C-alpha cells in the first residue's frame, strides 16, 4: 500500500511529482487537451482556452500571495500591462507572438518593482491597499496615454505570426496557451520545490525568523513579485490575443478580486490549487447562468436586463460559502479524497 508521508531520501521529498505513475495520468491529460480542439466543438475549446490563460495568471498570483504571503489586490494592473504591451507590439510593430509574450511578461515584471519596493516595509492589509492603488494608477495612466494605448476607446489586437506562420484561428491561440501553461506549471513547481520556494514559504510563515536564518528578504520578496508579475503579464498577453480588442474596462478591480478568489477557492500556495480555482471561477458565471435559465425560469420570469445582477449574487454567495465551509480550498479537499480512496477501506472521510 502506498502512503503519502513515508519518504526515505531527500530526492523523494523534492521530486516534481510524488509518484512515477502520476506522470502517466498527466501525460494522458495533456494528450486529451491537445486532442480537444480536433474532436470537440469550437465553443468547448474556446472555453478551455479561457481556463488555460486564467490558470497561468492564477499560478502567478499564487506565487506571491500563496507562497510568499504578500497579499496582492493589484494583479489586474499587471494583467493590463501585459495585455497592452502585447497589443502595442503586435498591432503597431508587427512582432512575432512568442517574443511578444516574453516582452509582455518582462515589462510587467519590471513594473512590479513599483509595488515590490513598498512591500519590503508593508505588511498585510497595508500591502493589499498599496497593490490596489497600483492597479488603479496603472489603469488611469493607460487611459491618459492615448497616443500609445487608444485611451478609453481601447485598442485592437492583431494576431500576427508564430515563427513566421500567420495565426488565424482561436485554435492556434489555444495551443499557444496550452504550451505556456505547461511551461508555467513546470517552472512554478520547480521554483516551489527548490531553495527559492522554501525561502518564500519561510518569509510567509515568519519573516523576522526567516531573516535570522539568513534569507535575504529584499531579494526574495522582489523576486516573488517579479515572477508573479511576469506570469500575470503573459496571461494578460494571452487574453488580449483571444479577446482581439482590449479596453480598460476589462481590467477593473473585480478582475483582481476574481484572481484572488481563484487562489482562495483552489488553495493557497499550491499549483494544483491555482488551476482548480481557475477552472471553478471561470466556469462559475456560466454555471450560474445555466442555473438561472433552468431553475428560475419555471418559478418566475426575470427580465433579461437583470441577469448581470443575478450572476453577481450567485457569484458572491458561492465565494462566501466556499470561504465559510472550505477554507483550505479545493486542493486540500482533493488530497483528502485521494487519501480516502488510496487507503480504502481504512481511511476516514474527513482530513
Amino acid at each position: 500500500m502506498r502512503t503519502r508521508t513515508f519518504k526515505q531520501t531527500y530526492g523523494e521529498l523534492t521530486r516534481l511529482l510524488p509518484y512515477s505513475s502520476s506522470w502517466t495520468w498527466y501525460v494522458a491529460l495533456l494528450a486529451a487537451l491537445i486532442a480537444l480542439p480536433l474532436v470537440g466543438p469550437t465553443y468547448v475549446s474556446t472555453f478551455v482556452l479561457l481556463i488555460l490563460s486564467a490558470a497561468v495568471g492564477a499560478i502567478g498570483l499564487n506565487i506571491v500571495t500563496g507562497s510568499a504571503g504578500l497579499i496582492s489586490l493589484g494583479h489586474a494592473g499587471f494583467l493590463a500591462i501585459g495585455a497592452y504591451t502585447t497589443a502595442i507590439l503586435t498591432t503597431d510593430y508587427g512582432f512575432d507572438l512568442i517574443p511578444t509574450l516574453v516582452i509582455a511578461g518582462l515589462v510587467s515584471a519590471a513594473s512590479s518593482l513599483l509595488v515590490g519596493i513598498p512591500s519590503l516595509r508593508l505588511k498585510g492589509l497595508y500591502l493589499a491597499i498599496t497593490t490596489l492603488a497600483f492597479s488603479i494608477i496603472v489603469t488611469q495612466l493607460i487611459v491618459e496615454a492615448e497616443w500609445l494605448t487608444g485611451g478609453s476607446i481601447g485598442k485592437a489586437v492583431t494576431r500576427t505570426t508564430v515563427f513566421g506562420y500567420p495565426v488565424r484561428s482561436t485554435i492556434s491561440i489555444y495551443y499557444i496557451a496550452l504550451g505556456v501553461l505547461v511551461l508555467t506549471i513546470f517552472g512554478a513547481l520547480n521554483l516551489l520545490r527548490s531553495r527559492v520556494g522554501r525561502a518564500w514559504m519561510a518569509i510567509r510563515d515568519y519573516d523576522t525568523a526567516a531573516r535570522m536564518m539568513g534569507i535575504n528578504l529584499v531579494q526574495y520578496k522582489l523576486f516573488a513579485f517579479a515572477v508573479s508579475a511576469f506570469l500575470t503579464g503573459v496571461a494578460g498577453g494571452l487574453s488580449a490575443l483571444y479577446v482581439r480588442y482590449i479596453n480598460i474596462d476589462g481590467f477593473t478591480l473585480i478582475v483582481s478580486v476574481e484572481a484572488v478568489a481563484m487562489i482562495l477557492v483552489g488553495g493557497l500556495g499550491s499549483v494544483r490549487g491555482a488551476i482548480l480555482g481557475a477552472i471553478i471561477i471561470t466556469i462559475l458565471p456560466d454555471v450560474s447562468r445555466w442555473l438561472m435559465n433552468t431553475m428560475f425560469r419555471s418559478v418566475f420570469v426575470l427580465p433579461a436586463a437583470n441577469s448581470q445582477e443575478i450572476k453577481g449574487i450567485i457569484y458572491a454567495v458561492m465565494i462566501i460559502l466556499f470561504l465559510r465551509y472550505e477554507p483550505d480550498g479545493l486542493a486540500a479537499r482533493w488530497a483528502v479524497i485521494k487519501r480516502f480512496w488510496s487507503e480504502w477501506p481504512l481511511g476516514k472521510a474527513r482530513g
Partner: protein
Amino acid sequence: MSYFWTLLIYGVLVGALYGLVAIAFALIYKVSRVINFAQGEMMMLVAYIAYSIALVTDGNLYIQIATIIAASVVIGAIIERVIVRPMLGRSTFSIVMLTIALAVFVRAFVGLFWDTDSHRYPIAVGGEMVSIFGVTFLVSQLVLLAIFFATCIGLWAFLKYTIAGIAMRATASDPAVTMLMGISVKRLYSIAWVISAVISGMAGVLYANIYHVGPSIGSIGTRAFPAAILGGLDSVLGAGIGGIIIGVVENLAGGYIGSGYKEIAGFVVVLIVLMFRPYGLFGERQIERV
C-alpha cells in the same frame, strides 16, 4: 478669490466625505483588524433605502434621519452577526475576501431591487447657496462639514471617556487580555460595526443629498481607502485628517495637472507616504516580539 483657494476649499468639502468613510474603515480596523471592503456598498444601500422612504413620506426630515439610523444599525448588526462573526479566528485575508464578496453581493442586490440609474435625491435639504468670504457653498455642503467635525469630536470623546470606548481601545491593543478582563470582545465588534455602519450610512445620504443617488456611491468607498491608509488604519482621528488631505490633494491635482489625474492623485500620495511611513501618518507602529 484665487483659483488656488477655491480648489482648496472645495477639496476640504470632498475630503470631509472621504474622512467620514475613512473613519468608518478605521473604527472597524482598530477593533477587529479587518478592513471592510463593503463599506462603500453599505453607504449605497443605506442611501437607496433612505431614497425610497423619502419618496413615500414626502421627504419629511425627521423620518429621514430616523430611517437612516435605523437602516444603518440593522445592516451593520446583520452583517457583523451573520457574515463576519462566524469567520472570527480565520486569517485576515479570508475575512477581507469575504467583505469583498459581500460588496459584490450588495451591489448586485441594489441593482436588482432598485436600478442602476442615477436619481435626484427627493428632499435635497440645503439646496440654497450661501456665500462665505467670496466662496459660494451649498448649505448641504456646510451640513456635511459640520457632521464631519461632530463625528470626529464625538468619536474621540466616545473612545476616550465611555466604558465601551475604553474597552475598544483595550481590544485594539490586546484582544486576549481584554477578554480575560471579563469584557465581551464579540459585543465590542458588534458595536464597532454598527457605529461604522451608521457613519458610512450618513456619509452615503449626505453624498446623495449633494450629488445624486446612484451606484457611483459605492466607488466612494474605494476612493476613501487612501484616506484611511494615509492617516494610519488604526487611528480614527487620523483617518478623518487623512480624508481632508486626500480631498485637497485630489482637487489640486485635478485643477492644475488634469482632470484624469484627480482620480489617482490620492493613490499616488499614499504610495509615496507609505514608503517612508509604513503605518501611515498617525498609525501606531507595531512592535514585534520574536
